[in-house]
C-alpha cells in the first residue's frame, strides 16, 4: 500500500531540472499581451488628475484601462466588496493599482506604467496602530471579545501578576514564484484562466463577476504554484481579473506577473500585532486568570482579516488550560497593504502571545520554563478531573503533548544540556547561550464552517490506469502526491498507475481554498469516497461474474483476487468492468463532521481536532552586537499516522525555519509616508539554507489521529510554523542571562533589538 511510504514529491525531478511548468512558463499563443498596473505613490487621498497620454504613447502599449473602462463589477475582495481592482478615485495605500496597461511585452507594460502624470489631493495617512486606534479606524463595530470566566477577578485575587506589551511584526510571503495569471478568451465569450492561486474557485467567481458571465463560462486551471503560504489565497484575484478584463477588451490572450518589487509593494502580508497581557498565577506557576488585548494591523481592506484575527484569539490558550481568560481583539484599518492569509492565519500571533506570558512567568518565578508549561497543560485524554475546555468552550479530547514533551526532552537531552548551558553561561560574560521549549496545539478546520468540504473526480480507464482530480492545489507542499497515494491504496495499485492532474474548476466545482492546512484531510477523503464508489461497482460486477459476494473481491498489490482461486490484474479487471458496461468514473465528496461554531459569541467547536508539536531550540547571543545563531533545534511533530513521512518532515523543517525567520530576521519597514522600504531580498532578510540550525533533529510522533481522518493522519501545513516560536524564546532566555530583569523582546528580534534588550537587562536602560 503506498499510503505511509516516504515517497518523494511527485514533481521533484521536474522542479530540480527546471521542467516543471509554472504560469509564466506556459507557452502562450502569438499576440499574447502583457499587463502591468500603474501604482499609487501616496498612501491616502484622492486622485485629482490622471494624465495617461504619456502611457498610451509609450512604445508597445496597446491599451490603458481605468476604473471607468470596467464593464461590470470593479472588485477583487474575497470578503467585503471593499477592494476595487482599479482605484475609484480614492487612494488607500502606496502601491494600490490605479490603472492597467496592456502592452506587447512585460517590460513595455512596466515601463509605460511609470509614465502617468498623476495629481493627488493628499490626506494624512493612518500608518500605525496608535494612529488607527486614536481615529477609531477599524473593521467591525468595535473589538471582538471572547471570554471564559471572570479574568479580571481571577487576576485581582492571584498571588502574583505579570504584565507587558510587545510588538510582533508582519511577514512577507516570499513565495519563489511571484503572483501570475494568464487568460485565454474563448469562442463564446467565456474565459480560460491559468492562475497561480491556492483558490481556483475564488478566481473563477471574481473573474465571472468582472466580465459579467455566470461561473460556468469561466474555467480556472492551476497545475502548481512555486509556493503560496497563504499569499495566493486572495492576492491572485487582481491579476486574474485584470487578465480576463484585458482579454475580453482586446480578444487576445493576456498575461500578468508581478516583478518581485511590485509583488512586495502591492500584495498583503502577515498581520502585524501589538499584544498586551496581564496574567495572574500562583506560586507554583499555575495560571489563574489572563487578559489579552490584540491590536491587529489589517491594512486598508478587510480581505481575510476577521477570520485571521479570530484565529489569533482561538490560539491565545495554545496548550494551556486557563480557568479564566478574556481576549479583546481590535481589527484596525490603516493605509498599508491589506494584510492577508499567511501560514497559521493568525494562530501564530495568538500563540506567541501566550508563549510570551509563559516565558515571563517562568522568569518571574525562576521556574524551569518546561515544567511551568507542563503544569498548565490541558489534561491528556481520559485524565481530566475538571474543566478541560478551551476559552471558546471546546473540550480538548486529543491532547498529546504530555507524552510528546517527555519524548522530546529525552531525545534532546534537555536536563543535561540545561545544566551544561547554565554552567557555560556563568563562565562567559559576552556570549550567552539560550535554550527554550515551546509546544504547539493548532486547531484544524476552517473557522468558516461551510468551507470544510471538498470534491474529487476519479476515472478508471479500460487499461487500468487512473485519472485523479480534486479541488486541492499543489504549492510545493506535496498534496498531490499524498492524495495520489490514497487513490493508489484504495485500488491496491502501484502509484505509477495514478495520473495526477491540474486543479480545474470544470472538473471539480465549488472548492475551498487549499488553506487552513486542510488540503490532505479534505481532498484525501473526497478522493477516497470517489475511489471506493468505483471499487464497489467493480467488486460487485466481478463477484457476479463468479457467483460470489463483493466482499470476496480483494484489490491488492496491483491484482484483484476474486474468491479463493481467481486472481487477475487490475488492468484486466478494469477491462472486464468496461466490457460489462460498468461506470468507471465517479465523483467523491467530503464534509468535515462535528463542527459547530458561533464566531460572534466565541463559542462552539470550530475545529475537528488539534495537531500538536514540540520544539527545543538552542541559540547563542553576543551581548556587544546582538548577533545570534541558532545552534540546534530538536522537533517532535504530530502528523498522526503520516500519509508520507518524507513530505511531512519537509513541511516541519520548512515551517520551523519560516517561523524562526518571522521572529528573528524578517523585518518589514515602512517610512513615514507609508512606503514599504523593504521590498526586495537586498533589504528584507528571509532565512537561507545556511541559516537553518547546524543540528536539526526532526522526528514525527508515532501516533494516529483520534478522529476519523484520512488513514488517521493529521494536517501538517501550518502547525510546524509555530515551532519557530522556540527560537525567539531561546533568544529571550539567552538575553535574560545578561542580568536580572525580564528581557521583554519584541519581534522580530533582529540583532539590534537583541542588543537593546541586552542593554535593558544589564544596564537597566
Amino acid at each position, binding site marked *: 500500500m503506498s499510503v505511509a511510504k516516504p515517497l518523494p514529491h511527485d514533481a521533484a525531478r521536474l522542479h530540480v531540472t527546471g521542467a516543471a511548468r509554472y504560469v509564466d512558463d506556459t507557452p502562450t499563443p502569438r499576440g499574447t499581451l502583457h499587463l502591468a498596473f500603474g501604482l499609487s505613490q501616496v498612501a491616502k487621498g484622492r486622485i485629482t488628475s490622471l494624465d495617461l497620454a504619456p502611457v498610451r504613447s509609450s512604445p508597445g502599449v496597446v491599451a490603458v484601462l481605468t476604473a471607468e473602462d470596467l464593464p461590470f463589477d470593479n472588485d477583487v475582495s474575497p470578503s467585503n466588496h471593499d477592494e476595487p481592482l482599479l482605484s475609484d478615485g480614492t487612494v488607500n495605500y502606496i502601491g494600490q493599482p490605479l490603472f492597467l496597461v496592456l502592452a506587447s511585452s512585460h517590460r513595455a507594460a512596466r515601463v509605460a506604467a511609470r509614465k502617468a502624470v498623476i495629481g493627488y489631493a493628499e490626506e494624512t495617512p493612518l500608518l500605525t496602530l496608535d494612529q488607527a486606534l486614536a481615529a477609531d479606524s477599524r473593521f467591525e463595530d468595535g473589538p471582538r471579545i471572547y471570554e471564559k470566566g471572570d479574568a479580571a477577578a481571577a487576576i485581582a485575587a492571584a498571588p502574583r501578576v505579570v504584565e507587558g506589551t510587545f510588538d510582533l511584526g508582519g511577514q512577507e510571503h516570499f513565495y519563489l514564484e511571484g503572483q501570475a495569471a494568464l487568460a485565454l478568451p474563448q469562442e463564446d465569450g467565456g474565459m480560460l484562466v491559468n492562475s497561480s492561486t491556492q483558490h481556483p474557485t475564488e478566481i473563477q467567481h471574481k473573474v465571472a463577476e468582472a466580465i459579467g458571465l455566470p461561473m460556468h463560462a469561466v474555467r480556472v486551471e492551476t497545475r502548481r504554484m512555486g509556493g503560496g503560504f497563504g499569499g495566493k489565497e486572495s492576492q491572485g484575484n487582481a491579476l486574474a481579473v485584470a487578465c480576463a478584463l484585458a482579454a475580453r477588451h482586446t480578444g487576445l490572450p493576456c498575461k500578468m506577473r508581478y516583478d518581485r518589487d511590485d509583488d512586495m509593494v502591492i500584495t498583503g502580508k502577515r498581520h502585524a500585532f501589538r499584544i498586551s497581557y496581564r496574567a495572574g498565577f500562583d506560586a507554583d506557576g499555575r495560571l489563574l486568570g489572563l487578559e489579552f488585548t490584540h491590536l491587529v494591523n489589517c491594512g486598508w481592506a478587510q480581505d481575510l482579516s476577521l477570520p485571521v484575527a479570530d484565529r489569533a484569539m482561538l490560539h491565545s490558550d495554545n496548550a494551556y488550560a486557563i480557568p479564566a481568560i478574556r481576549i479583546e481583539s481590535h481589527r484596525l484599518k490603516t493605509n498599508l497593504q491589506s494584510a492577508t492569509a499567511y501560514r497559521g492565519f493568525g494562530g501564530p500571533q495568538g500563540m506567541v502571545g501566550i508563549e510570551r506570558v509563559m516565558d515571563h512567568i517562568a522568569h518571574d518565578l525562576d521556574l524551569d520554563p518546561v515544567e511551568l508549561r507542563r503544569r498548565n497543560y490541558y489534561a491528556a485524554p481520559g485524565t481530566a478531573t475538571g474543566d478541560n475546555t478551551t476559552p471558546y468552550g471546546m473540550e480538548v479530547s486529543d491532547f498529546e503533548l504530555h507524552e510528546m514533551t517527555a519524548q522530546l526532552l529525552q531525545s534532546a537531552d534537555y536536563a543535561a544540556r540545561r545544566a551544561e548551558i547554565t554552567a557555560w553561561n556563568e563562565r562567559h560574560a559576552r556570549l550567552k547561550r539560550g535554550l527554550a521549549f515551546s509546544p504547539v496545539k493548532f486547531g484544524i478546520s476552517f473557522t468558516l464552517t461551510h468551507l470544510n468540504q471538498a470534491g474529487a473526480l476519479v476515472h478508471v480507464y479500460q487499461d487500468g490506469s487512473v485519472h485523479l482530480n480534486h479541488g486541492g492545489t499543489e504549492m510545493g507542499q506535496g498534496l498531490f502526491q499524498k492524495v495520489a497515494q490514497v487513490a493508489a491504496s484504495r485500488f491496491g495499485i502501484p502509484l505509477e498507475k495514478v495520473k495526477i492532474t491540474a486543479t480545474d474548476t470544470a472538473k471539480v466545482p465549488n472548492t475551498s481554498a487549499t488553506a487552513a492546512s486542510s488540503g490532505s484531510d479534505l481532498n484525501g477523503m473526497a478522493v477516497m469516497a470517489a475511489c471506493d464508489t468505483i471499487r464497489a461497482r467493480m467488486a460487485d460486477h466481478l463477484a457476479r461474474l463468479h457467483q460470489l459476494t463483493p466482499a470476496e473481491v480483494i484489490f491488492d498489490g496491483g491484482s484483484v483476487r476474486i474468491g479463493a482461486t481467481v486472481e487477475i490484474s487490475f488492468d484486466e479487471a478494469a477491462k472486464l468492468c468496461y466490457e460489462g458496461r460498468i461506470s468507471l468514473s465517479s465523483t467523491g465528496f467530503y464534509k468535515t463532521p462535528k463542527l459547530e461554531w458561533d464566531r460572534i459569541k466565541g463559542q462552539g467547536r470550530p475545529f475537528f481536532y488539534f495537531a500538536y508539536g514540540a520544539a527545543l531550540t538552542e541559540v547563542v547571543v553576543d551581548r*556587544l*552586537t546582538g*548577533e545570534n545563531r541558532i545552534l540546534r533545534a530538536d522537533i517532535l511533530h504530530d502528523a498522526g499516522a503520516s500519509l508520507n513521512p518524507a513530505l511531512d518532515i519537509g513541511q516541519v523543517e520548512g515551517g520551523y525555519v519560516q517561523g524562526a525567520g518571522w521572529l528573528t*530576521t524578517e*523585518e518589514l*519597514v515602512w517610512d513615514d509616508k507609508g512606503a514599504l*522600504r*523593504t521590498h526586495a*531580498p*537586498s*533589504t*528584507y*532578510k528571509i532565512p537561507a539554507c545556511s541559516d537553518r540550525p547546524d543540528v536539526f533533529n526532526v522526528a514525527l510522533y508515532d501516533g494516529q489521529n483520534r478522529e476519523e481522518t484520512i488513514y488517521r493522519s493529521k494536517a501538517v501545513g501550518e502547525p510546524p510554523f509555530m515551532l519557530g516560536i522556540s527560537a525567539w524564546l531561546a533568544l529571550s532566555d539567552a538575553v535574560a542571562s545578561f542580568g536580572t530583569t525580564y528581557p521583554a523582546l519584541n519581534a522580530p528580534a533582529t*540583532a*539590534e533589538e537583541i*542588543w537593546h534588550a541586552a542593554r535593558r537587562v544589564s544596564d537597566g536602560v
Partner: protein
Amino acid sequence: MYNFEFEKPATIADAVAALGAEDAQALGGGQTLLPTMKQRLAMPTKLVSLSGIGEMQGVCSNNDGSLSIGGATTHATVAAEAAAQYPALADLASHIGDPAVRNRGTIGGSLANNDPAACYPAAALGSGATIVTNAREIAADDYFQGLFTTALEEGEIITGVRFPVPEAANYQKFLQPASRFALVGVFVAKFADGVRVAVTGASEDGVFRWSEAEQALSASFSPEAVNGLQVDPANMMGDIHGTKEYRAHLIGVLTKRAVAAAS
C-alpha cells in the same frame, strides 16, 4: 539602460584619450555601474572599459616593502595574490560581495565609486594607501571626500593603489543580513609610527578615521585601550537597517575585535 558607445583600450594613454569624450565613463568590473545604468540612474554616452589594460593588472611588491595593486585588479585576484604580503587586505578582498562580484569587481572601481558601505575605502584609508592615477598620486587622507565623492577629476583613472604594509592589521565587518553589505566595517592597521583606524558603512560622510581610537591604540595596541571611547552617534547614518546609536556602538565593538584579531 540607455544606449552607449563601448571602447576597450589596451593602454592607459588610450583610455585617458577615450575618456576625453563628453559624458564618457570609465568601466571597471561594472558591479555598481551596470546595475545603476540598468535602473537608468546613469546615462554615459560612452563606456571605456579598463579591463583590457595590462599595466593596470596584478599585485606586486615594491622595494620599500609596500604593495602595489593595479587599478583593474579584481577582488578575487587581490584575495589570492596579496595573501602572503598583506593578509588583512587579502582577507578583506575575499569577503567582498559574492563570488560573482569578486571575479568582476575591481579595486579601482570600488575606490572611484566610494560607496559609503564599501570595504576597500576602509582598507585604503586605514592603511594610509596612495591612490595612483594617470595624472598624479593622492594620499588616501586627501582622497575620500564624502559619499560617492573623491578627489578624482573628470576623466582621471585610478591606475593603481600603493599600500604600505603594516606590522599588523585586521578588518572586521558587521553584515547587514539581507544585502551582506557592511552595516559597519572597521579596518585597523598598526605601523611602527602609530595605529590607523578607518570606519566604513557608518558615517553620513562616508569612510572616516577614528582619531581618538588611533591615539589610544598607538599608546597601547590592545582591545582594552578602546574602552570608554565612543563615536558620537550624531554624525552616523540611521536607516532601515540600523539606528545611529547602534552603528556608533558597533564601531567600538568591531574596533576591539579587529585589534584582538590583529595583535
